[in-house]
């Protein structure tokens, strides 16, 4: 006798140890590929598109193999069309179609790189590796959960207000056709015919036939109802927790000459984290990039991170620009507004008052959260270590902290700092205060 064994409930993921071993083996390559994906990719892509390509170097499993590009050998192929014995054929180009085109990479050995997918968690783990990420997703802003009704198919029972007329009628029509229910025009026609005959006043045989037929039709109409309980369908809804509508995230950055590439990279990482974080909280997160020197401009992501600009540094110009964008496109009631500003702290001395007033009067009241990140290199950190010696912007913004709990500022020197700073800014306790 034979056994069928149901193994479907056995644990899956038997390959997990192997997968982990592979990941460990390919660690350095994966780390590099992820970094490249981060540096080259867009902020919005991070963590969504886990597909990465890594070079197969070091992952190659060598064997003793023939090199068939040399020497003499015979091959038998199917599908001869025009060749006859003794023909000379031009050697097809390598890798091209035709004779054994795929031979070279038959078992993947010919490939130089290969693609695979990282799960979102794996990707984040690698991405935040040198940032020592504990668990980003668990850190969440305290917020009220709202429910949203979502369509979930059709049901046979429900409240009349949820009746789906179209579907009900479709069922009814199908049933009526199938059961051959006489249509009203058919009955009307018969009736008028009878009336016409009756008007003539003669009780002919035909009249009687027609009357019998009419009776039959009508009884059939009674027998097969126009709408049967069978036909009725109601719309069904389920409640799903609703992410708190939508948010817009402003990225402000000083791009004047004093910002080095390293500083920009730090800023970029911070922006990315913030975006990732907001994405877990909100259904839709818009990004606005504003860069400034002595004048500010809204730009696309590419320009924001990669193009260079020279000029002085007037921070208020960026704030003004942000204010303008807010007024134009993001009405206060509809959007959660977040902003992150990165700068090396330089500002024209004359700009102080203006900055302060814009922040106090319009921006901070509108924002859910505004974080200021001051990026600097180690030397600068030495200089600006103590409270007496502060950068211009730091000095101005310090005045805001007591008044606005939705404003925070931190200094970042190394990429390792970013995550702790980020966590510090967005920890649960902090959110409670806001």
């Amino acid at each position, binding site marked *: 006798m*034979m*056994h*069928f*064994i*149901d*193994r*479907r409930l*056995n644990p*899956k*993921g*038997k*390959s997990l*140890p*192997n*997968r982990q*071993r*592979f*990941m460990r*083996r*390919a660690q350095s390559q994966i780390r590099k590929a992820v970094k490249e994906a981060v540096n080259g990719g867009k902020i919005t892509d991070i963590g969504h598109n886990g*597909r990465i390509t890594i070079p197969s170097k070091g*992952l190659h*499993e*060598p*064997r*003793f*193999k*023939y*090199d068939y*590009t*040399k*020497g*003499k*050998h*015979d*091959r*038998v192929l*199917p*599908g*001869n*069309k025009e*060749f*006859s*014995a*003794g*023909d*000379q*054929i*031009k*050697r097809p180009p390598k890798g091209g*179609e*035709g*004779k*054994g*085109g*795929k031979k070279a990479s038959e078992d*993947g050995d010919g490939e130089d790189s*290969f693609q*695979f*997918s990282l799960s979102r968690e794996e990707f984040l783990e690698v991405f935040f590796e040198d940032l020592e990420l504990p668990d980003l997703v668990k850190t969440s802003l305290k917020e009220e959960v709202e429910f949203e009704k979502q369509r979930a198919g059709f049901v046979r029972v429900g409240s009349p207000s949820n009746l789906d007329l179209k579907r009900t009628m479709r069922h009814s029509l199908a049933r009526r056709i199938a059961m051959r229910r006489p249509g009203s025009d058919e009955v009307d026609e018969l009736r008028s015919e009878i009336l016409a005959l009756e008007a003539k006043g003669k009780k002919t045989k035909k009249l009687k036939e027609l009357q019998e037929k009419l009776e039959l039709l009508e009884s059939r109409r009674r027998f097969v109802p126009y709408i049967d309980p069978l036909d009725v369908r109601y719309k069904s809804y389920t409640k799903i927790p609703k992410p708190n509508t939508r948010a817009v995230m402003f990225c402000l950055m000083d791009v004047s000459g004093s910002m080095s590439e390293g500083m920009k990279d730090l800023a970029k990482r911070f922006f990315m984290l913030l975006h990732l974080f907001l994405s877990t909280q909100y259904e839709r997160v818009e990004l606005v990039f504003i860069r400034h020197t002595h004048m500010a401009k809204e730009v696309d992501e590419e320009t924001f991170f990669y193009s260079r600009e020279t000029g002085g540094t007037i921070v208020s110009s960026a704030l003004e620009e942000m204010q303008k964008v807010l007024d134009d496109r993001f009405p206060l009631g509809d959007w959660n507004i977040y902003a992150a500003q990165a700068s090396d702290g330089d500002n024209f001395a004359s700009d102080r008052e203006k900055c302060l007033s814009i922040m106090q009067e319009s921006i901070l009241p509108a924002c859910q959260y505004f974080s200021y990140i001051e990026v600097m290199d180690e030397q600068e950190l030495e200089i600006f270590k103590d409270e007496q010696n502060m950068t211009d912007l730091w000095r101005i913004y310090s005045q805001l902290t007591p008044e606005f709990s939705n404003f925070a500022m931190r200094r970042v020197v190394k990429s390792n700092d970013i995550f702790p700073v980020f966590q510090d800014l967005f920890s649960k306790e902090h959110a409670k205060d806001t």
Partner: protein
Amino acid sequence: MGQARKVQKPLYDGAEWSFEKLDAVYDAIEEIANEDLGLNVYPNQIEVITSEQMLDAYSGIGMPLMYNHWSFGKSFVQDEFYYRKGMRGLAYEIVINSSPCISYVMEENTMTMQALVVAHAAFGHNHFFKNNHLFRQWTDAEAILDYMHFAREYINKCEERHGVEAVEELLDAAHALRDNAVNHYSRPVPLSKEMALQRLADRREHERADYRDIWSTLPPEAEGSADDKIKSHSQVANMVKFDLPEANLLYFFEKHSPVLEEWQREILRIVRNIAQYFYPQKQTKVMNEGCACFCHYFIMNRLYDKGLITEGSMLEFIDYHTRVVAQPEFDDPRWNGINPYALGFAMMQDIYRICHEPTDEDKEWFPDIAGCNKGIEVLKDAWENYRDESFILQFLSPKLIRDFRLFQIHDNSALPHLKVEAIHDGRGYRKVRSALAKSYTVSEMTLDIQVADVEFEGDRAITLRHMVHDDVPIDGKQAEQVMQRIAQLWGYDVGLYCEDAMSGKILATYDVTTS
């Protein structure tokens, strides 16, 4: 086929499968397999798994109890990637040459697919595994699952004791020599988990019992002079002592490497045994799939003739079947070599045809079997006694060569043009046939590499020799990497020289010097 159609009630209807239906279909298939085909199979064990478990099973080269290694993870992530992106489907089944014969079927399959898979794997492949002479000589179906279990446990234990990295490094090196780890001429000793454990225990016991502290106080020279046998420096003595030349490289390192520890030798042995286990499969791809396809085709048709499956299921089956046995032509974008399913199935069907409805040509080419009316007997004999190479050489008929429009190309890299050597015509049949058969020989799959010499007295260098046939050289880049791994196994200098088999000229050398 041929029999009068006794109409019975279909066993199932629709696509959904259930265990009751599977049971009924299995019994019906078993009846046909026993009565019409007379198959001789191991007891069957059919396991239903999910697609994710199928992906898992894939990565362990189809073995359910494979030990852990990153290379299996590599194939797993890749299979998974292609599968998730919809670029590649999954196999409908995996079957393991063991007793009981385990077939995995996927839960996503329709009922018709399950029937097909049972006929294909649980009867077709199973019969082949049990009866083909290569499998009977080289593999031990009773013991393989036990042995795999032992191997997995053993390697796990080694990882605990010696560290994952050390084991991984060793496995990397061993895997590089997997193709050169088969005893081509002597049959392997039957595997057994108990025996393997017993051998290890004996060895430990021997070491313990033989331990004499006093030996450790002896000066090192005394050891050499005490042993008369290794005094001789001549190569001849070495040849005799180490039984050179030796083509089973992994075996040689396991037995004679001066640097490996006991557990490392045991792991080499495991890799070698598994390679040996797969050796018959490599040589019988066409026949094995041909046998399974013939069986499922025959059985499904019989089921239909008996009225046990509906017309709809039959159509569904034919759809799958034709896709499996399709052979794209050489200039087709889908061309990826000769499809063993297509060639195997066509040859089996052709043999059956020759036995029952021979043409004059068949009578001339196959006087022994043409018109004998014992198609199934002839096929079963072939399944038992041939491998791909000899099977093609014996049974590929002119009709099939015409049907496939096979032609032979001679590729000499020294010449600018390829030459069409033979096509499907009277003068070409035999040439095409032997050329095709040759492409399935063992020497096409593994290179002729042997341990040629060992210098145990001096620098302990080892020399490997590759015999180059038809000027086809070794892939140099890969050879360099493999030699690195060999150096790791041997611990001292290693060298490989490639010698032309005809002229004896040395064409290339690959050396790794350890210092």
